């Protein structure tokens, strides 16, 4: 129980772990026939590894690491398009730092920057707006990336740019939404998931009802969770209790931050600026219907795809993933990161081959970062 001592409240953690063990027994789950729980959000994946929750919980629980890391699911073709945009004359390409090392077919943004492209890491799309104001003779492109948590920020930034008539600002929109890949995973006949731990900060924006179909159509429980370790244990317990009782409901463990109906200002901005794409490509998962957003026609002046003619609809898209990359199998729970032949050899956080190794929210990077410490603890 070494890890439990690191908890803010070790006694509460132990009590929760005891209750989890009881419910796992009541369900009759074992290491051979475990209950599979997917944590959707990459922040949760990171926390599970950091606190060794996968080791502290009974062997009858298997955590499957979901597709909720936007950097990890960014397809190579999109990285290529980023590089293409960044290499346009006169362009300042702005991006979150997380995206810099994602491999493309030609190069990553980091390599493009080393080759002379003006690529700047920003904290916020507001920084990109300010760069546009200060550089009226340059075109500033912001790489809009992320789930519903960051989507409102680019929507509000585009609205602001429109209000100011800022003509040299545009967004390369790669925003994606959480529910469609969950539906795709549940439709996969090979998938054996028993329940979900739902993302906290995405849900803060969209509320809990977009998940209703998971309970109603697929009969699986989901509990929206905070990302403190105690939140996660509590949420896992709630999922297990539903499984034991034969219930399938959408519950909210993180109600102190997540309102039932989400954040109305954010939702209004998203609806004003974005519309669904017919489909969007996810690294390792392929094209998923209605899973991505694009900028509406009324804001076309701020859409980098329109402005530069780069992106969806501008050419053939199918791009293979790098040779030997098992990211797709890892993301659908068919393979553990360590089972990938490249893990730790051809693919490390310093030199990632696959995207799951790029961000600390990616399952492979989390395994890599905390795997050593865990093995040492187990040996004690």
């Amino acid at each position, binding site marked *: 129980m070494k890890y439990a001592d*690191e908890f*803010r409240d070790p006694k509460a953690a132990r009590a929760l772990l005891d209750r989890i063990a009881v419910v796992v027994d009541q369900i009759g789950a074992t290491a051979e026939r475990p209950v599979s729980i997917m944590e959707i*959000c*990459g*922040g949760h994946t*990171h*926390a599970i590894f*950091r*606190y060794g929750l996968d080791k502290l919980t009974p062997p009858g629980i298997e955590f499957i690491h979901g597709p*909720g*890391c*936007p*950097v990890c699911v960014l397809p190579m073709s999109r990285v290529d398009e980023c590089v293409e945009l960044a290499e346009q004359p006169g362009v300042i390409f*702005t991006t*979150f*730092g*997380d995206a810099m090392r994602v491999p493309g077919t030609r190069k990553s943004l980091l390599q493009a920057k080393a080759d002379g492209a*003006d690529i*700047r*890491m*920003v*904290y*916020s*799309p*507001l*920084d990109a707006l*300010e*760069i546009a104001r*200060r550089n009226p003779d340059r075109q500033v492109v912001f790489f809009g*990336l*992320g*789930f519903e*948590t*960051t989507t*409102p*920020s680019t929507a*509000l930034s585009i609205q*602001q740019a429109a209000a100011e008539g800022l003509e040299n600002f545009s967004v390369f929109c790669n925003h994606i939404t959480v529910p469609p890949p969950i539906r795709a995973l549940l439709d996969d006949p090979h998938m054996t998931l028993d329940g979900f731990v739902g993302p906290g*900060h*995405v849900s*803060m*924006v969209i509320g809990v009802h977009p998940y209703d179909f998971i309970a109603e159509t697929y009969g699986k429980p989901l509990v929206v969770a905070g*990302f*403190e*370790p105690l939140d996660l244990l509590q949420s896992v317990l709630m999922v297990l209790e539903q499984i034991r009782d034969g219930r399938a409901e959408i519950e909210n463990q993180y109600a*102190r*931050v997540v309102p039932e109906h989400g*954040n109305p*200002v*954010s939702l209004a*901005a998203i609806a004003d600026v974005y519309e669904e794409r017919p489909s969007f490509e996810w690294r390792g998962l392929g094209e998923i219907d209605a899973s991505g957003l694009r900028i509406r026609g009324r804001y076309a002046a701020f859409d980098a795809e329109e402005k530069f003619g780069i992106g969806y609809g501008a050419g053939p898209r199918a791009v293979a993933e790098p040779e030997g990359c098992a990211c797709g199998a890892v993301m659908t729970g068919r393979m553990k990161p360590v089972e990938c032949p490249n893990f730790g050899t051809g693919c490390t956080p310093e030199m990632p081959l696959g995207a799951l190794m790029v961000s*600390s*929210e990616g399952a492979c990077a989390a395994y890599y970062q905390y795997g050593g410490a865990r093995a040492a603890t187990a040996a004690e």
Partner: protein
Amino acid sequence: MCLGIPGQIVEITDAPRMMAMAEVSGVRREVNVACIAQGPLAGLIGKWALIHVGFAMSEIDEDEAAKTLEALRGLGEAQETLEAMAAGDAALEGRS
């Protein structure tokens, strides 16, 4: 990028643009408060919020802010966010 960081609103800097100064782990940073604004912006001063990529997304209480910050520190995310803010400042001047 996806995990927010708690900050305390200390000043309204540009009301028409919904901008306020927030103090995040000892660092001051201008943030957009449109998503948590209900009524006059001055009412936000002293309040805590979860800040995502420069936008205050959800009001939280002080205790929740402290717990969240501790969880972020445990994950190394607090440091990462502060570094990203510094990188953003550098990018404005073209220093990044």
